[in-house]
């Protein structure tokens, strides 16, 4: 194993706050809200806690829904005026919870709602749902809202513990996965009656399915498993099926994530001239085209202590017969060919439980049983002249895919013992919303959760 300290750490991880009061039992995961400065945490004490990201205080606790540990949670995207949370538990069920967006101090709420006397009390919510204004939230300390989370429906179908839940980018589909080796896809019928329909049950994995994540734009799902594989799933004429199986990890795949859509074009945004220059060269080459053809990459982490990035081979390359596939168009036409693009520099000494890929900065963060937080940055490798030459001579090299992006991953920050002696179960990037932020630009925070129940918020800066 290489040294734990990066050669040139260029970022610092600073403790910003903890979320208080914490759960006193293991916290498995946090889910930052897509719109609001709040975060949901999943605890072994069978509760889901909602905290503010502006003052880091507990807003409400959802209890009574799950009979065992809450393992996972995800916010439904594109819902206006209301927040919809899906949760998954060791009790083998997934729950759907709803709450009107009114986390505001009484005075501020009164101001905003001055023109309308209707106050969300949950009694008439269906009628007012469509007309609720989208509110700007910057401050709240109201802890009396606990009862306002409405239990909507329990999704029952898995035979054993639900490990992960994820909403498709449109919010139409919910994927759940379990120790029973299956992945279920449910369609939210959005019929006002909280009806969900089972769209598909995929059972190809040979072990617990530990994690699921959706493509940022398409209805394409990726899963990681106890069988050490990563699988990619798509719908073909009403049938969901496996389109790729990625092998390489030497242990349980604990986490998967797709590359965010925003990243790539904005990589040079912080005005570093050097980087911009390299970017320009890079763009002039085939790289951007290559990336565009490949689509978002997949990030994974494993019990084998590694963090890896996977890339889909562009379809054109397939047709030319690159890789091991014969150049015959297969009946389904949906099979995808993925290959490992990079194994990130090894830092973790134990299982890596979670990875997060920032769509704003392109930074990757990983955490695991060794208590470390590691941040990696992708850097463009300047090989201009050489690269240009080979560019021209490409046709000589048969069956060679378009030149691979000239990038390398560098460890830019390592924090040992981020939660003291405790293992870290999850890491997530979220938009910074506290008063200490620089309001002139969008900043990001890291949120980590640990075995002692603690949830910590960090800034990552230069």
């Amino acid at each position: 194993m290489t040294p734990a300290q990066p050669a040139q750490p260029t970022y610092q991880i600073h403790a910003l706050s903890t979320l208080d009061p914490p759960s006193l039992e293991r916290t498995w995961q946090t889910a930052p809200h897509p719109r609001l400065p709040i975060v949901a945490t999943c605890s072994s004490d069978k509760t889901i806690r909602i905290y503010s990201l502006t003052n880091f205080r507990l807003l409400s606790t959802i209890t009574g829904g799950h009979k065992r540990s809450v393992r996972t949670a995800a916010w439904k995207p594109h819902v206006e005026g209301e927040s919809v949370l899906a949760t998954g538990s060791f009790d083998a069920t997934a729950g759907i919870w709803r709450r009107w967006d009114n986390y505001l101090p009484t005075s501020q709420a009164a101001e905003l709602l001055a023109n309308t006397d209707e106050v969300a009390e949950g009694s008439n919510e269906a009628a007012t749902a469509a007309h609720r204004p989208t509110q700007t939230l910057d401050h709240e300390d109201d802890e009396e809202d606990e009862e306002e989370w409405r239990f909507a429906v329990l999704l029952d179908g898995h035979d054993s513990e639900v490990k992960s839940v994820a909403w498709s980018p449109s919010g139409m589909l919910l994927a759940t996965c379990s120790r029973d080796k299956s992945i279920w896809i449910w369609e939210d019928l959005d019929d006002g009656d909280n009806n969900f329909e089972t769209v598909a049950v995929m059972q190809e994995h040979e072990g617990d399915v530990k994690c699921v994540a959706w493509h940022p734009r398409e209805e394409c799902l990726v899963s990681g498993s106890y069988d050490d594989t990563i699988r990619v799933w798509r719908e073909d004429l009403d049938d969901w099926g496996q389109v790729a199986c990625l092998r390489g990890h030497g242990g349980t795949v604990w986490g998967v994530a797709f590359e965010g859509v925003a990243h790539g074009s904005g990589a040079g945004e912080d005005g570093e001239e050097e980087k911009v220059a390299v970017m320009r060269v890079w763009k002039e080459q085939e790289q951007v085209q290559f990336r565009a053809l490949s689509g978002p990459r997949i990030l994974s982490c494993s019990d084998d202590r590694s963090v890896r990035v996977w890339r889909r081979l562009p379809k054109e390359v397939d047709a030319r017969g690159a890789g091991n596939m014969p150049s015959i168009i297969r009946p389904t036409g949906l099979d995808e060919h993925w290959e490992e693009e990079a194994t990130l520099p090894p830092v973790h000494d134990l299982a890596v439980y979670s990875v997060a890929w920032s769509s704003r900065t392109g930074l990757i963060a990983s955490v695991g049983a060794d208590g470390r937080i590691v941040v990696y940055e992708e850097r463009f490798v300047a090989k201009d002249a050489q690269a240009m030459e080979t560019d021209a001579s490409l046709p000589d090299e048969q069956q060679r895919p378009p030149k691979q992006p000239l990038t390398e991953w560098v460890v830019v920050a390592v924090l040992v013992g981020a939660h003291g002696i405790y293992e870290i179960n999850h890491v997530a990037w979220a938009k910074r919303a506290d008063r200490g932020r620089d309001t002139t630009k969008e900043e990001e925070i890291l949120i980590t959760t640990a075995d002692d129940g603690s949830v910590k918020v960090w800034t990552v800066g230069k």
Partner: protein
Amino acid sequence: MASAVQNSNPTILNVADLPTRLGPAALSKAGTDRVGTLASIFPPSAYSLDCWPTGYSSSDASDEEDVTEEPIDEQEIYDLISSISDPEHPISLGALAVVSLPDIAIKPTLPEVPESVLRTVSVLITPTITHCSLATVIGLGVRVRLEQSLPPRFRVDVRIKEGSHSTAEEVNKQLADKERVAAALENGTLMGVIAKMLETCQ
């Protein structure tokens, strides 16, 4: 048989003599036996014979070299888990040689971080027969016992000793899976079995 509680050697000898033939009738007495006593009379190996009677004063266990540094040493780990009962027989894992002192190791979890207080306790267990379907349950019992007894800075790594079990790899993966272990702890039936095994601990 009830006199076994009083450390009557011959009685215990008889019980221990027939570990695999004990009927259900004998099971009920398991909880009342002082397992430490059992093991002290029937040490599973020559090595254990040396260290068992001395109990916590492990200074004469010549194989352990760094006992002065660590407040919790291999001997203490052994004492914690050797008294666990086998799920099938009312015999301790120590007496059955399922766990043994040479198969316990305590090492720094992060050797590259000298200031780290994290320690990994590795326990290799040797199931009594190679196809013992209860290997997972035994391993889980050992892991639960250690996780409940040790301070949180200890990481517990329980594995089946190489070559001793036909599906060792499968069992090891399961025992190392934090999520599965956590879920197992919430499984009433399984925890009932584990609780019974741990009844004989202290």
